[in-house]
């Protein structure tokens, strides 16, 4: 019998890290200071009943590729509040005001919103999805899937 039969610790070793062929990504980490959109500004805009402006601020300020999970969840919760606050009739105008970059970021938020459904959120998000899709087409959905830096 082999000498070491009692310990299974060797099974916890990740051998893949020693593989020379592994693709190592460029580690350009996002500057943590430039974190996320301005929370207070957006909440104040929401309170002042200006959800469309809040949306613009949210999308322009959103940083992609943040590694910190808590920050990402906070950013998602904020985004969901803004998206829910905008009524279905206002969505068309809101989407028309955005430029292409921001529409791509919006589509990313919509898909992240689908991942964590609350009551009634998915139905509203579906309306958002349809409106953004009419303007940006399949290209924006492909970019949600291919962009490595998630929102």
């Amino acid at each position, binding site marked *: 019998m082999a000498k070491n039969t009692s310990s299974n610790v060797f099974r916890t070793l990740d051998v893949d890290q020693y593989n020379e062929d592994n*693709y*190592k990504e460029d580690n350009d980490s996002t500057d943590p200071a430039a974190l996320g959109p301005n929370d207070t500004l957006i909440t104040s805009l929401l309170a002042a009943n200006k959800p469309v402006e809040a949306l613009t601020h949210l999308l322009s300020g959103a940083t*992609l*590729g943040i590694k910190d999970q808590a920050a990402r969840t906070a950013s998602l919760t904020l985004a969901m509040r803004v998206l829910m606050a905008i009524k279905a009739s206002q969505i068309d105008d809101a989407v028309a005001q955005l430029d*292409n970059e921001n529409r*791509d970021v919006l589509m990313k938020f919509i898909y992240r919103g689908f991942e964590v459904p609350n009551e009634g959120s998915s139905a509203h998000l579906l309306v958002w999805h349809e409106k953004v899709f009419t303007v*940006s*087409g*399949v*290209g*924006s959905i*492909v*970019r949600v899937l*291919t*962009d*490595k*830096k998630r929102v």
Partner: protein
Amino acid sequence: MTTIHKFGATPISCHAWSGNRSELALSHNSKDVTLYNAKGQGWEKTAVLDQHDLRVTGIDWAPTTNRIVTCSSDRNAYVWVKGPDGQWKYTLVLLRINRAATCVRWSPEENKFAVGSGAKIISVCYYEKDNDWWVAKHIKKPLKSTITSIDWHPNNILLAAGSSDFKVRVYSGFIKEIEPKPSATPWGARMPMGNLMTEFSNSPNGGGWVHAVSFSPDGSKLAWAGHDSSISVADAANDMLVMKLKTNLLPMCSLTWIRPNTIAAAGHNCVPYTFIVESDAVKLGSAMEEDKKKESSGKTSAMDLFKNKDKLGQNELETKLNFTHQKQIAEIRIVGGQKGDVDTFSTCSLDGKIVVWNLKTLAGQMKGLKI
């Protein structure tokens, strides 16, 4: 107008035309390359090149020297020369890679060819007369992932490579044994073999694999198509400015320059599109084909309507795409004219068809066509 050539129902993964455009080499996603000769309206099979053990991934036919180079997943490349008896004789090229070869292109002067591979290596191969043998030189740094596509610069020295690490790189493929030193270009002055001239990232967000790269006809611009549904053009003359267009379409798999400032690209949308390159931006031109909506016969009775709704859950059975190609387009090749002044080009697709697009007649037929 478009001419459709059908070669069965199996996907055509790559194809290449002979210099006089009367012969066609194609591969049906298998280890064989079939050669066809144009005969009247159809095609006559003249030869089957079956030296490879695994799937053929790239074919290129040199127009002047009439040599075919094929590369395959079996880590080899073969150069085929037509003997005086009409038989194709093969020569194995040792690429010295330990992964599959993915794409191959002859250089403009046809004295060397470059092979991209999954081994993170580009092999530039040239013919050594003394030993009657093709020698491969490697470009390794700083490639970090599979090379997906390759294109040569018109000066026969520079080489662009698109890769699955989301970057496009321009290298020097200068072989001092067979050619004189090149003069300076907008891409750089010093060009020792394997030197990285510039590197472009597809997108700051990562942005998807690069599917196709192509130098402009004068070599000053470089266009590439990424999997994030974008077309980008880098202008070396303009301080390496990168112009990127994020399209609303599905990603493109192949592209080429049909006019000095127009690109034709095709891919998962099953129809070629044109893109106009302006001094600071790339704009979508138009699709090369109109959506041929089949008009419903009008005689569909109410009963049929409800029968379909019940059986299929929708009003009509629409499984055919309204375009000539029914599956995504794998490759675009120039047939008539040169890069930058193209009269006709061909597209091969996964539906087994090769369609030749004639730009002049298309421009006459389609009012909205922007070239």
